[in-house]
């Protein structure tokens, strides 16, 4: 075991030299080709984060369970459509005489008709809560997942070892192992869109206005206003994670 070290060191050294040689010309091409805020030279980290604390509001009264968000999310973030992994999904709660029946077939992409049920029936969209105290970041052994200054938890796909400790640590089931990259993956509130001044894809396509996204640091923003004027709560407050997704009209049965 010990004898491998010098060889590995040599290989990493050689790779670094190679990479440095290749990265310079290639890197300039990539940077010129993208339209993100940071690359456009306006601002750079950490100034980009100044005055920004992103937040998300889900209004469960409005959600109609159409699943457009689930589909758009997979398209936007290149998550294989047919694999049972979801950055966002929609759960359906139907109160029956036996209690509550919950389902989320295909992550809620296309709810099949379900007839039985009582008065109380509703949908609950779920996504990464971008916790203020994220257990996933706490447990990542290699520093491959982290919380940005504006409150979004990202995954470093090039550093993640795929140990899946973060998946175990997330109380919300928001993380999964990406079937193609074999690293941890999760909702980032479409951070790449947010930096370009767009809203997350699920918010953009939601026909019912059930999903709202904005800056909690700005009291005039829509999300801040909803939170300040409505009775809202996050999921599993007892876990002490301080989620940043706030639900309007959330029933107790939703876990």
């Amino acid at each position, binding site marked *: 075991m010990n004898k491998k*070290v010098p060889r590995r060191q040599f290989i990493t050294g050689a790779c670094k030299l190679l990479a440095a040689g290749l990265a310079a010309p290639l890197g300039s091409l990539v940077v010129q080709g993208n339209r*993100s805020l940071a690359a456009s030279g306006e601002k750079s980290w950490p100034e980009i984060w100044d005055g920004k604390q992103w937040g998300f509001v889900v209004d469960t009264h409005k959600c109609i369970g159409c699943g457009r968000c689930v589909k758009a999310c997979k398209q*936007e973030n290149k998550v294989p459509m047919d694999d049972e992994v979801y950055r966002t999904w929609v759960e359906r709660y139907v109160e029956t005489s036996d209690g509550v029946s919950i389902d989320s077939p295909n992550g809620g992409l296309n709810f099949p008709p379900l007839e039985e049920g009582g008065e109380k029936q*509703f949908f609950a969209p779920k996504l990464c809560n971008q916790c203020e105290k994220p257990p996933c970041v706490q447990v990542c052994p290699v*520093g491959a997942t*982290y919380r940005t200054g504006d409150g979004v938890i990202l995954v470093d796909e090039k550093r993640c070892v795929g140990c899946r400790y973060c998946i175990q640590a997330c109380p919300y089931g928001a993380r999964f192992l990406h079937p193609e990259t074999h690293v941890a993956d999760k909702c980032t509130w479409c951070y790449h869109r947010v930096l*370009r001044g767009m809203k997350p894809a699920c918010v*953009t396509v*939601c*026909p019912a206005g059930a999903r709202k996204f904005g800056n909690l640091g700005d009291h005039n923003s829509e999300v801040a206003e909803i939170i300040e004027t409505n009775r809202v709560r996050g999921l599993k407050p007892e876990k002490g994670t301080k989620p940043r997704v706030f639900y309007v009209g959330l029933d107790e049965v939703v876990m």
Partner: protein
Amino acid sequence: MADRMADKKEGVTGFFQKATVRVGSLLAVVLILFAVGRAFAVPDSFGEYGRYRGNNLQENADKEVSFTKGNEVCRDCHNTVFQALTGEYHNSLNCESCHGPAAAHVAAIGAETDETAKPVEIEETVELCSACHAETAGRSKEVIATVQPVKHSGGIDCIRCHNPHQPRTGLGGMRQ
């Protein structure tokens, strides 16, 4: 000191013997190699903003978008469709909710290859409309008009009767 004691000939007692010194040196070499290896292996931008690779921020930022910013992007070219958008309901919808991601379509404007510039495909099926308008548990009739597609029309394509850009409820919902 260690070496001096080890170099002495036989009869040496105490901790510093040839064996312990050899093994100790081997351990020291391993440790040094590890330290050197680590110096090479830790990415340069690691720890720039926190305990992560700082360059990853840009890598995340640079990911391609599939959906555009919103309807204003579509309006630039398809203004006539917007003018024809009448009725109470679908006005507030985002084009891409039904038409699918259009960023590639927008990016291909002016490109030489017609293949990439082709319009966004729409699934002209009952399933698309059913996603919102089919009756199902949990979907409140007070929030959205719902039907049972098979009973309602025998499962034929909705757009044969309805114009999704001019939706109305009741009989008025039919195409004129």
